[in-house]
């Protein structure tokens, strides 16, 4: 007892007061201030951002409860570990292996995507991938098919094409899924925002999940502090070019030579020649091009027919390898104009250079999936603009240059699912009203559908967030996909 009292004396009232006050602050902010209740994301150099695994919390608008599984995706179930035949991602390697359902008894479908597939403001059970899973499961029961079905939703809010492709490469590829559904809208062709890894420190993931951190971020960090790096002189075009080049050169070299140093014999010399030719092209592009056309010009140099041919003789698909390197190397100054132009006029001819590498990438993914008997299905997602404007270009347009030379249809009968028309018919009368009366402008300038509009019940979009589907919209989308899978025979057991 005396020893205990002695110990308490050293620890002292300071420590007790400090720990208790920190605990009281945390609990008070959580319960009284509604801080720390949201699903949290972290910065990532490779993906831009990712959700932390194993979270339970509210959506940002407190509409629905959300949960992430042990892989950091929105699901209330863990999926176990993918087979690690090719190493898998770092993430899957550090996780303990969990039991996986026998593949033979399971139809495994994966989907990438952004908030439209993630299911912003919709309970997880009502998101279209989960509804699709239920529809397929019911179909299997009806048929007496003993198989199970698992639709794994790898969507993350805000992602564009390159981020989805990286999620495919790192997370989905090891699963060798039966079907990968790739939902897409025109805005997906925007380049990913340049990002860096969150600066790591002890207990970082624990800290950023606390209510205290949430309050500090909202009330102090984002509100009062200037972003790091600001305050210095504005960068000159030359400095921006230098940084872009310094990032791009090693990324391209890695793409050409792989992780190992170039051998001096064999094809090592030819690869060195290819790198020299790339360097010469880059030097030309960087020398003569103003900043606003630099990315396009660099891409033109990298996809010069003679370079592509030279790479092909080495077994390299230069266009596919070089684009991710280029997109990862963008600086904020180069990314901002590209992003805003693509948002404004995604189908303009000047934007063609953003579609081409994506089409080629997707085609390569489709081929890769086919090898073990899988399939890719591109799902053309409806949005409010497409639903209201009959003559608006379908997102399919931006796949055309690629699909014309390698028709999607060749990859299987399920390959292109156009869900746009399926939204026009049930919303026909509401669409008329919206064309006549227009949207209501929200506080932040966003388009809202007035609660008092006639036929408002027809809406397949959220009334106060027309960029996302409501529960009925998710169900409609799932039904379209299900019908297409059923019709194409994709649900039949493999031979």
């Amino acid at each position, binding site marked *: 007892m005396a020893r205990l009292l*002695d110990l308490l004396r050293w620890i*002292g009232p300071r420590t007790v007061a*400090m720990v208790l006050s*920190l605990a009281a602050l945390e609990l008070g902010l959580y319960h009284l201030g509604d801080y720390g209740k949201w699903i949290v994301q972290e910065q990532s150099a490779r993906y831009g951002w990712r959700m932390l695994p194993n979270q339970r919390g509210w959506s940002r608008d407190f509409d629905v409860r959300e949960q992430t599984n042990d892989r950091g995706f929105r699901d209330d179930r863990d999926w176990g570990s993918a087979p690690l035949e090719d190493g898998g991602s770092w993430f899957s390697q550090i996780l303990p292996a969990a039991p996986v359902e026998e593949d033979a008894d399971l139809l495994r479908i994966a989907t990438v995507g952004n908030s439209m597939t993630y299911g912003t403001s919709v309970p997880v059970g009502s998101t279209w991938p989960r509804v699709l899973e239920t529809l397929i499961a019911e179909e299997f029961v009806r048929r007496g098919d003993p198989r199970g079905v698992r639709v794994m939703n790898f969507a993350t809010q805000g992602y564009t094409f390159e981020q989805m492709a990286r999620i495919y490469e790192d997370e989905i590829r090891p699963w060798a899924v039966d079907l990968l559904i790739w939902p897409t809208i025109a805005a997906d062709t925007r380049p990913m925002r340049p990002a860096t890894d969150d*600066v790591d*420190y002890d207990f970082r993931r624990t800290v950023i999940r606390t209510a205290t951190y949430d309050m500090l971020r909202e009330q102090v960090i984002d509100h009062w502090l200037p972003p790091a790096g*600001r305050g*210095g*002189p504005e960068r000159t075009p030359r400095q921006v070019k*230098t940084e872009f080049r310094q990032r791009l050169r090693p990324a391209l070299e890695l793409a050409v030579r792989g992780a190992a140093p170039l051998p001096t014999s064999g094809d090592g010399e030819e690869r060195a020649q290819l790198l020299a030719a790339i360097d010469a092209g880059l030097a030309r592009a960087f020398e003569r091009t103003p900043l606003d056309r630099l990315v396009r010009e660099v891409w033109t140099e990298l996809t010069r027919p003679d370079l592509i041919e030279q790479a092909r003789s080495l077994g390299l698909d230069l266009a596919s390898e070089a684009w991710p390197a280029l997109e990862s190397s963008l600086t904020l100054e180069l990314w901002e104009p590209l992003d805003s132009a693509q948002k404004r006029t995604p189908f303009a001819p000047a934007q063609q250079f953003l579609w081409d590498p994506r089409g080629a990438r997707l085609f390569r993914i489709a081929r890769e999936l086919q090898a073990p008997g899988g399939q890719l299905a591109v799902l053309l997602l409806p949005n409010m603009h497409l639903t209201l404007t009959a003559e608006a270009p379908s997102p399919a347009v931006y796949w055309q240059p690629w699909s014309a030379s390698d028709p999607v249809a060749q990859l299987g009968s399920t390959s292109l699912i156009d869900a746009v028309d399926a939204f026009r018919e049930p919303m026909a009368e509401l669409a008329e009203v919206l064309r006549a009366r227009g949207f209501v402008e929200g506080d932040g300038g966003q388009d809202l559908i007035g609660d008092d509009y006639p036929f408002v019940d027809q809406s397949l979009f959220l009334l106060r967030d027309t960029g996302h589907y409501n529960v009925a919209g998710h169900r409609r989308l799932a039904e379209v996909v299900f019908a297409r899978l059923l019709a194409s025979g994709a649900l039949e057991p493999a031979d």
Partner: protein
Amino acid sequence: MLFNSFEYVLFLWTVYVLFWTLRTRRKLRHTMLLVASYWFYAQADWRFLSLLVVSSLVDFWAGRGVHDALEAGNRRRAHAFLGLSLAVNLGLLGTFKYADFFLGGFSDLAQAVGLDPIGLRLDLVLPVGISFYTFQTLSYTFDIYRGKLRPIASLLDFSLYVSFFPQLVAGPIVRAIQFLPQLEQPPEYDDRRVSSGLFQILRGLVKKLLMADVLGAHLVDAAFADADTMGQLGAPALLLATYAYALQLYGDFAGYSDIAIGSARLLGFELPKNFDAPFKSRSLEEFWTRWHITMSSWFMDYVYVGLGGSRVGFWRYARNVIVAWGLVGLWHGAAWTFALWGLYHGLWLVAVRCVRMLLPDERLPQNKLFAVLGVLFTFHVVAFSMILFRCPDLATFSSAVAQLGDWSMGLPNVPWQIWLVLGLGYASHLMPDAWQQALERGWEATPRVVQGLALAASMVLLFALHPPGLAPFIYFQF
């Protein structure tokens, strides 16, 4: 493990509780501190623990050797042991810190005469803290040689002296004569000292997180990035960045020293002061008695005085100063910028001596006007040297010097928060000593529970206001 990390808070708290729990068990207490210190060091890189152990063993043995030889009147043998200590410690330092620098110089020379010395690089990683602990162990052997210290009997205590975690990585450079007697005394718990230690730590964290890291992240790092950036700055922006860097470097290193001194004080040890408001100095000589005091006094005692000090003729004095400060420059890093930085200070010290020689009694005027002018002049002499200190290479420094003549551009668009940090930073630095002491006394008189609440609030605010992530301390690279 960084002082400004949550992990360190947990570590220090655990050691603190164990230390006072074992206060009556001397051997166990010292063993616990040694294990904790080695563990602390191993967090940076466990492989370099061997160097720490080797340095400790060699000087423990060499110290005894020197003492026994001197007792027996055998100075040659004493010199041999001293030489061994020097060879091992400076050998370690030379290999890990300077090998590539000198090999690079040799390589350039060889290329100039048409040779092709391919592969003349070792690419060794610099072990954390090696510049600090090798100097500590050397001081032990030197002091025994000079008859100021008797060798210690316990290898455990000596190893603890070398590796004591608060000062292990970046000082203060503690002399054996200052620390070993404290190990002999049984620790007496004094709550006021604990309060004072916590105040020191808090002060250090504010200097590091709110002053140094903020200025670095928002102003200095961008301005000093490379020669290209420097070439675009213009004189006003460069001056602003330099004033900010002077405060950043002070906040970073003085902050580290404060945390080190505070941490040691929690465990009942007193480490020497390392900074004493250096920008208040009225002359460069005074500056070096206020800036990195333990390093400058080390060079002063063991190099400058060894060479003959100031009680010699002018030219010999000039040589001694320039050699000593050239070595001070190289101690900071194996680069020409550091060597030039040291020489610059050496030359200024000689110049100040020249001016003194022209004055009656070699004393500078003591009135207030001269005091203010002296402070401003000394600050700018030091600040200019900091451009050299901060520039990654001589090309960037040349670019900076060229910019000093370009007044065509205005100040950069600096957020108001950064102006506030700069203003408060310099104001608190120049605050009268009495105010600082009153602040510390006020803290010590505050009830313990209130101190606990203030600590909690400080932790939250420091976390919120400093730039994201943990910036390592600048002096870790030395």
